[in-house]
């Protein structure tokens, strides 16, 4: 029985919540609604949003990529290290990109061909990547952008028409990913695979190469996020591999309405989830709410959003149970 709430998908619930919070902050917090601050808000979560897009690509295909942050941190830290030691730019960037692609291929092959569940394969890959990086590729866990790489600021430390470049890259990557998922055969195949892997394979979709492709795309997006981070703060802190960033990434994906069981949602969902986090963080920073209190407030609001959704859109046990993440 449809009680008329069918139109309230999780994405819309989160969007409404973000809009309400936005309105509240705009009314009660001086300076929140200024154009400069709104750009700061989006800029502050651009990297999170980009990583969310990289995660969403594999989650829609019913996978998960827990090594995304390790890929981002180590491939870019190594690139910066090589830029300093090789005194060049193009070769180190290509090596970093190749490293990210290699990570994606290995993860994809383990999942698609060796048939290790994505959760375990990428969890192990994250530790492996971090270990290789710390042991062999970089000396210190914070690698600074070297003096000869001033050109890197175009990725994160300048503005174009008063818009910080991380925002532009976020928009660009979101647009490409969204169009790709919606209007290409590969995009359709990813949804089909996520919805029902076995049926997709039976109908002739090449699911194994498709899985490898998803993890490669995810890793490349991770590399892009890392370059933007490094350019923004003139350094790459590989310590984030041990932080909660990977869970924040999963959060914006799931919160926005991309179900972990695959086949649902899209890039717009990630954007909605990211903007909700952005509104919260920016507003609380302006209010000088302390970090620990911020975490409590953030998690409470997010739980409320998920609880409301589970009431309005009850889980279908039969549909939800198919397959193993």
């Amino acid at each position, binding site marked *: 029985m449809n009680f008329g709430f069918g139109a309230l998908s999780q994405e819309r619930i989160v969007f409404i919540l973000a809009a309400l919070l936005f309105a509240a902050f705009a009314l009660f917090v*001086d*300076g929140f609604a*200024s154009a*400069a*601050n709104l750009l*700061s*808000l989006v*800029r*502050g979560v651009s*990297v999170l949003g980009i990583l969310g897009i990289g995660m969403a690509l594999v989650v829609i295909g019913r996978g998960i990529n827990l090594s995304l942050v390790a890929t981002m941190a180590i491939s870019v830290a190594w690139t910066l290290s090589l830029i300093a030691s090789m005194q060049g730019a193009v070769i180190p960037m290509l090596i970093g990109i190749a490293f990210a692609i290699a990570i994606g291929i290995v993860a994809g092959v383990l999942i698609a061909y060796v048939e290790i569940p994505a959760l375990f394969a990428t969890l192990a890959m994250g530790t492996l990547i971090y270990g290789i990086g*710390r042991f062999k590729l970089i*000396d*210190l*866990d*914070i690698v*600074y952008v070297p*003096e000869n790489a001033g050109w890197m600021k175009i990725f994160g*430390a*300048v*503005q174009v028409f008063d818009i*910080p470049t991380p925002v532009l890259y976020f928009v660009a990557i979101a647009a490409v990913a969204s169009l790709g998922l919606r209007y290409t055969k590969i995009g359709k195949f990813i949804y089909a695979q996520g919805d029902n892997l076995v049926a997709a394979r039976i109908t002739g979709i090449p699911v194994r190469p498709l899985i490898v492709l998803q993890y490669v795309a995810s890793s490349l997006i991770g590399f892009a996020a890392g370059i933007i*981070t490094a350019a*923004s*703060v*003139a*350094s790459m*802190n*590989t*310590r*984030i591999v*041990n*932080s909660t960033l990977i869970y924040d990434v999963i959060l914006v994906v799931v919160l926005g309405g991309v179900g972990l069981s695959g086949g649902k949602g899209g890039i717009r969902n990630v954007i909605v989830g990211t903007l909700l986090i952005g509104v919260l*963080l*920016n507003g609380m*920073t*302006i209010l*000088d709410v*302390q*970090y*620990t209190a911020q975490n409590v407030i953030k998690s409470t609001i997010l739980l409320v959003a998920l609880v409301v959704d589970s009431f309005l859109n009850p889980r279908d046990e039969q549909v939800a149970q198919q397959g193993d993440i």
Partner: protein
Amino acid sequence: MKRLITMLLLGMLALAGDLSHGISRAAADDSGLTPEQLAMLKGKTVAFVPLSMGFDLTEGWSAMTRKQLEPLGINWVIRDPNWSTDAGAQAISTLIANKVDVLVVHNPDVQSYARLLKKAQDAGIYVVQVNMQSAAHTDAFVGGNFVEIGESDANLMVAKCGGGKGSSNKIAIVQGVLTAAASIERMQGINNVLSKHPEIEVVSNQAGDWDASKSRAITDTVLKQHPDLCGVIDFWDGAAMGSGAAIREAGKQDQVTLVTAGGGEQSACDNVSNGTFTVIDISDVRTQSDDIAKSVEKVLLAKQPAGADKQILYTPLVTASKETMRPDTCWSLKDYKTN
């Protein structure tokens, strides 16, 4: 007679230690130790349990201290918890069971290792603490005085932003994590000064999780709210890269004074030179490494049981700005690392 000579030599060693900061010992022949003392040191094991290897403080302490102790026949071993307090506690328990001679421990906080350090001393193992003192006091502590650093930060803010000297009286503070002893003591130092200077207005006091991206986002937001901001105190130079980036991108490097602190690795001076930091307070890792090595030698030669004597060696604070920097103000890890 032999005991008298030994005591005289120990006294001379202690005096030499006070006078010879920065002088590193290249070979056993130059150590100033008698053959008897060298025999006492040979074969001893010193174990280092850092928060994590891989960052400038711990890599610096290890490389420099090893360079001084190994020529004396001392074994330097490392057990790296990689930021895990549980793994660190396990490492210390194992080292106690293995009966090492000296533990050099970098505490994650005030409480976590306290019981274990006491247990180590009870087992006859000497303990030297580095950078952050535990609730359990041991044979030696070597590190910066965070209260003093906080006072230095705040005094600079008063000098730059008080009495109408700056763009405003407004400053922002970016901490590491609120519950870290380093942050608490630093804030205590800052408050000691600001309580006497109420004209300084702290418009933001946030934790950045020791992360440059978070520091950048916080400082960016604060600058949008307070375009006339005059100063930022960011507690750690690795994170202050982010605050510095936000200030630079806003085009306010001439207006906003950014002060931070660190161990004096070369990137710190580079970032003062290029304008990212206005000032950095340095607790020099070279000085600290000398103090660690001398503390180890002292406890091993002293013929006293572990815990009998407790020594605190605060690292003298060096404040580096463009005007005060010298070629040797900072150090580079590659000059010390051999493996």
